[in-house]
C-alpha cells in the first residue's frame, strides 16, 4: 500500500500514480510482441510478415486506449496489470499467427486462420475493460448485484447443456452469425461477484456461529447452505458438461474465498478432503476422466490408441524438443499436436519455440498478474473488494496452474485455455474484463485517502504564538 499517511498539519501529498511506468511497460510489451512477429515471419518465410504492421498497430492501439482510459478513470491503479495482460495478449497473437502459418494446419479441412479473429476478440475484450472502468466507478457497486449474479452465473452455466458437445465437452453455445461462446469463462467472473457479496455479509456468521465437530468448526446450515448449494449446483453442471477444468477452478476459488472470508484453516482441510472425494468419485464413473488420468500416468503407453494420450505425449515431446533455449519462433513442430495446438496446447508452442527460458518467463508473467491481484486484495480497504480481488486472482492462478500443469503433464489434462495466450474469443474477452475489475479495485485501494476537512480544534492547537 502506497497510501501516504497524512497529518492534519501537512496537506495530503499525492501518492505516485505510476501511470508513466505503466505506459513505458505497455510500449515494451507491444514492442516485444511485434518483435515476435518479425521473428516468426523471418523464420518461416524469410521476410518480415506483411501483417506485422497491422497486428503491431492493432496491439499498440489496444494497449494505448486501455492505458489512456486507466489514466483517466483509474489513475491510482496497479501499474503492472495492464502491461502484463498486454504482453500476454500480444505474445498470444504472435503464437496464434505462427500456428496459422503451419502447413500441417493448412492441410486440414477444418483450418481457418485464427490470429485476425483473435485480434478482433482482444479489441472486444479491451472494450469491455474500458466499459468496466468507465461504468464501474467503484467496485462496491457490484455488491448490489450479489443475487442477480448468482442467477446469471447459473444461467450461463446451464446454457451449454442445450447445445451439442464439441470434442467431448459441452461448454460451448453456438449463436448463428456470431460464432461460438464459452459462457463458463464469463460465469467464472460473475460467480466470484456472488461469492464475494454473499461471504462478505455472512462471514462473521460463518466464522463464529459454528459448532466444533472433531476439531473442525462447522458453520450453521442456514449460513453455509445457500452458498454450498450454488457451488454444488455449478460443479454438478460442469461435471455433466464434462468440463473438468472449470469444476476444479470453481471449487478451488470457492475454498480460497471461504478461507479468506472466515480466516479458518479448517476450510482448507475441508476443501482438500472434498476435492479428493470428488475427484475419486468423478473418476470412477466418467470414462472421459479415466482416459485423462491414464494418459497422465503414462502418456506414451496409449500411443496410437487414444487421442488423449497421444496429445499428451506430443505435448511432452514438444516441450522436450524445445530444450533450454528453444528452437526459435516458427522453427519448431508444435503443430504436430493437432487441432488443439492453438488453444489448449498453446503453451507447448511456447515451450518448444521459446524453450525453458521463454516458458519460465511466461509463467512468471502469469505469476506476477496473480500476485499483483492478491496484492490488490491486501491493499483493498473493504472486505468485498478483498474477497472479489482474491477470488478473481485465485481463479486466475488456478486456471493457469490447471492448464499449464495439464499440458506439462504435472496433473491430468482437463482442457481449459491459457488466459490471453490461447485462441478463443470468450476467454480473451472475459479475462480482459477480469483485469478491468482488478484494476478498478486496485485503483480504489491505492487512491490516497481524501484529506480530512480541517477542524477548528486542530486549528487552535496549531497556533504558535511568538
Amino acid at each position, binding site marked *: 500500500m502506497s497510501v501516504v499517511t497524512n497529518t492534519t498539519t501537512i496537506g495530503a501529498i499525492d501518492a505516485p500514480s505510476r501511470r508513466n511506468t505503466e505506459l513505458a511497460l505497455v510500449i515494451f510489451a507491444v514492442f516485444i510482441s511485434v518483435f515476435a512477429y518479425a521473428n516468426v515471419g523471418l523464420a518461416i518465410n524469410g521476410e518480415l510478415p506483411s501483417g506485422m504492421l497491422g497486428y503491431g498497430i492493432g496491439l499498440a492501439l489496444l494497449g494505448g486506449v486501455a492505458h489512456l482510459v486507466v489514466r483517466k478513470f483509474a489513475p491510482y491503479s496497479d501499474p503492472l496489470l495492464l502491461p502484463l495482460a498486454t504482453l500476454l495478449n500480444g505474445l498470444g497473437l504472435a503464437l496464434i499467427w505462427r500456428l496459422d502459418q503451419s502447413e*500441417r494446419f493448412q492441410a486440414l479441412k477444418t483450418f481457418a486462420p485464427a490470429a485476425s479473429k483473435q485480434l478482433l476478440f482482444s479489441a472486444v475484450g479491451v472494450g469491455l475493460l474500458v466499459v468496466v472502468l468507465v461504468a464501474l466507478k467503484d467496485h462496491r457497486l457490484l455488491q448490489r448485484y450479489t443475487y442477480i449474479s448468482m442467477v446469471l452465473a447459473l444461467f450461463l452455466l446451464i446454457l451449454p447443456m442445450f447445445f451439442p458437445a464439441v470434442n467431448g465437452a459441452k461448454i460451448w453455445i453456438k449463436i448463428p452469425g456470431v460464432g461460438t461462446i464459452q459462457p463458463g469463462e464469463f460465469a467464472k467472473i460473475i460467480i466470484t461477484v456472488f461469492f464475494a457479496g454473499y461471504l462478505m455479509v455472512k462471514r462473521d456468521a460463518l466464522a463464529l456461529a459454528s459448532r466444533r465437530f472433531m476439531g473442525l468448526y462447522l458453520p450453521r446450515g442456514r449460513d453455509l447452505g445457500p452458498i454450498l448449494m450454488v457451488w454444488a449446483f455449478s460443479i454438478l453442471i460442469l461435471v455433466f458438461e464434462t468440463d473438468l477444468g472449470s469444476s476444479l477452478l470453481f471449487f478451488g476459488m470457492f475454498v*480460497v474465498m471461504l*478461507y*479468506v*472470508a472466515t*480466516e479458518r484453516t479448517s476450510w482448507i482441510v475441508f476443501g482438500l478432503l472434498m476435492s479428493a472425494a470428488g475427484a475419486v468419485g468423478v473418476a470412477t464413473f466418467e470414462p472421459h476422466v479415466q482416459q485423462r488420468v491414464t494418459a497422465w500416468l503414462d502418456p*506414451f503407453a496409449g*500411443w496410437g490408441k487414444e487421442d488423449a494420450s497421444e496429445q499428451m*505425449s506430443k505435448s*511432452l*515431446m514438444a*516441450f*522436450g*524438443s*524445445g*530444450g*533450454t533455449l528453444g528452437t526459435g519462433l516458427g522453427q519448431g*513442430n508444435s503443430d*504436430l499436436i493437432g487441432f488443439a495446438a492453438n488453444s489448449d496446447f498453446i503453451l507447448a508452442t511456447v*515451450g518448444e519455440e521459446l*524453450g*525453458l527460458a521463454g*516458458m*519460465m518467463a511466461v*509463467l*512468471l508473467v*502469469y*505469476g506476477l498478474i*496473480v*500476485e499483483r491481484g*492478491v*496484492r490488490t*486484495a*491486501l491493499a483493498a480497504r473493504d*472486505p468485498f473488494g*478483498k*474477497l472479489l480481488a*482474491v477470488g478473481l*486472482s*485465485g481463479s486466475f*492462478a*488456478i486456471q*493457469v*496452474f490447471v492448464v*499449464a*500443469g495439464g499440458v*506439462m*503433464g*504435472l496433473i491430468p489434462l482437463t482442457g481449459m485455455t491459457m488466459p490471453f495466450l490461447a485462441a478463443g474469443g470468450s476467454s480473451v474477452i472475459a479475462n480482459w474484463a477480469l483485469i478491468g475489475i482488478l484494476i478498478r479495485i486496485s485503483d480504489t485501494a491505492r487512491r490516497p485517502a481524501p484529506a480530512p476537512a480541517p477542524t477548528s480544534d486542530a486549528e487552535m492547537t496549531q497556533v504558535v504564538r511568538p
Partner: protein
Amino acid sequence: MNKPLRRIAIFCGVLVLALLIRDNWLQYVRADELNGHKYNRRVQIERYAHERGDIIVDGNPVTGSVETSGSDFKYKRVWKDGPMWAPVTGYSSQAFDASQLESIEDGILTGNDDQLFFDRTLSMVTGEKKTGGNIVTTLDGAAQEAAFKGLGSKKGAVAAIDPRTGAILALASTPSYDPSVFAGNSLKDSDARQKLLKDKDKPMLNRALRETYPPGSTFKVVTAAAALENGLYDDIDAKTESPLPWTLPQTSVQLKNEGAIPCENASLREALRWSCNTVFGKMSDDLGNEKMIEQTEKFGFGKEIFTPVRSDASIYPKDNRPQNAMAGIGQASNRTTPLQMAMVAAAIANDGKLMQPYMVAQRQAPNLDVIHNHEKEQLSRPLSGENARKVQQMMETVVSKGTGTNARIDGVTVGGKTGTAQHGLDNSEKPYAWFISYAKTDSGSPVAVAVVVEDGDANRDDISGGGLAAPIARNVMKAVIDGM
C-alpha cells in the same frame, strides 16, 4: 482478513513454483530423452530435412535424394537400379526406417555422425547447407550387373570377393525389390511394402548374406582342405582308400554316387573332378567331427560376419558319425551363406589366406574428405600355401575337364566346384544348384565367386550346378577381369 490473504499469496506462488520446477524437469532434465523419443516425429523430420549422402559404386552414386512436397519430410531416398543394388544398400524409408548399409552408415549418410562433428560445426559457421557424407563401396558395377542379370528371373544369390583384399565385388539376390517403392511415407508406400512383405518369394531377403543353404558338393572343397591340412592325404594324385560301395558308419545305408563314376580309391583330384560322394564322405568320417568343425571355423564358419552388413553364421554342427560323413559332402545339417562359400573359394585362391570381407572402402565427409579408409585385414589362415595350391589344382581340373566346364574363360585360369544340394523332406523339393569358383591371372586371383540358384532342376548331381550356376559365376568373373 490479511493473514489468510498472505497465505493465499504464498499458495499462488507455490502453484507457479510447481509449474516452474515441472518445466525445468521437462525441458532440462528430460529434454534429450523426449527429443530423441521414438515417437517424436521431429527426429524423422530432421533426418529427412537434408539431402542424404550417397552410396557410391565405381565412383558413381547408386543412390540419390529427391525433394518431395506435401509432407513433413523434405527429401526422399531414390536408387538407381534399385532391385540390383538393394542387397548392397538396403533401404531407407521415411516411414519404415532403414536397413543394411543405409542403416549401418546412417550417421555418415545423414551427416549426424560424431566423426563429422568438425565438418558440421564448420558448415554451421559458414552457413553452408547441411548434407550427408558418402559411403564408397568396394563393389564392381559390371560384376554386380553380370550377377544380377545372370540370376534373372530365377531365385538365388551371388557373392563375389576379391581374394587378395576381401573386398566384396558383387552381392546379388533375386527376386529383389526396388527400395524406391516405399521410400516415402504415403499410403502407396505402405501398401507397396506390405505387398513385398507378404510375397512368398521373400524379395526383401538378402539371400547372399542372410540365407543359409545346404552347400552340397561345393563343400567337398572344404573337406579336401581339411584332409590335406590334417595330413590325412598328402598327394592329390595318389590313390585314396575309398571302397565302393561305401556304407555310412554305424548304419547299413550305402552312400551313393551320382551315376557310374570312377570313385573307387579315386585320387583327390579325380574324386573332386567327378564329385565322388563316397570318397569325401569317408574322408569326413576319417577326420572326425571335431577336425571338420575346426577346419570350417578357420574358413569363417560358426560366427556372424560383418561386412559391415551382418551375414548370418554358417554352421558345421556337432554331429554323430553318419551325419558327419554326410556333412562332409555338404548334404546333412551344415548350412552356409553364399558369402561364406565365396570366402572359402577366396581363401583357396589367395594361397590359403582368408581376408576379412568388406564392402565399405571409404567413408567421406560431405566435403568429400576421407574420414575413414578400410585397411585390408587377414581374418585367418585356413590352409598352408602349399595345400592351398593343391586344392587350386584340383579345382582347376574340375573346370578344365570335370563338372565345371561351363565356367571356363579363355586365357584365364579358373578353378571351381559345382554342387547340387538336396533339401526338403526325403529330398522332395527342388535341389539348390551351387557353383563356387575363382579366376586367376599373373598377379594372383582378382575374384572368387559363389553362386546359388534355388530352383536348380536336375536329376543328376553336379550337372545342374555346372549347368545353372557356373555360367553366372563365369560371367561375374569375366566382368571383373575385363574391367581390370
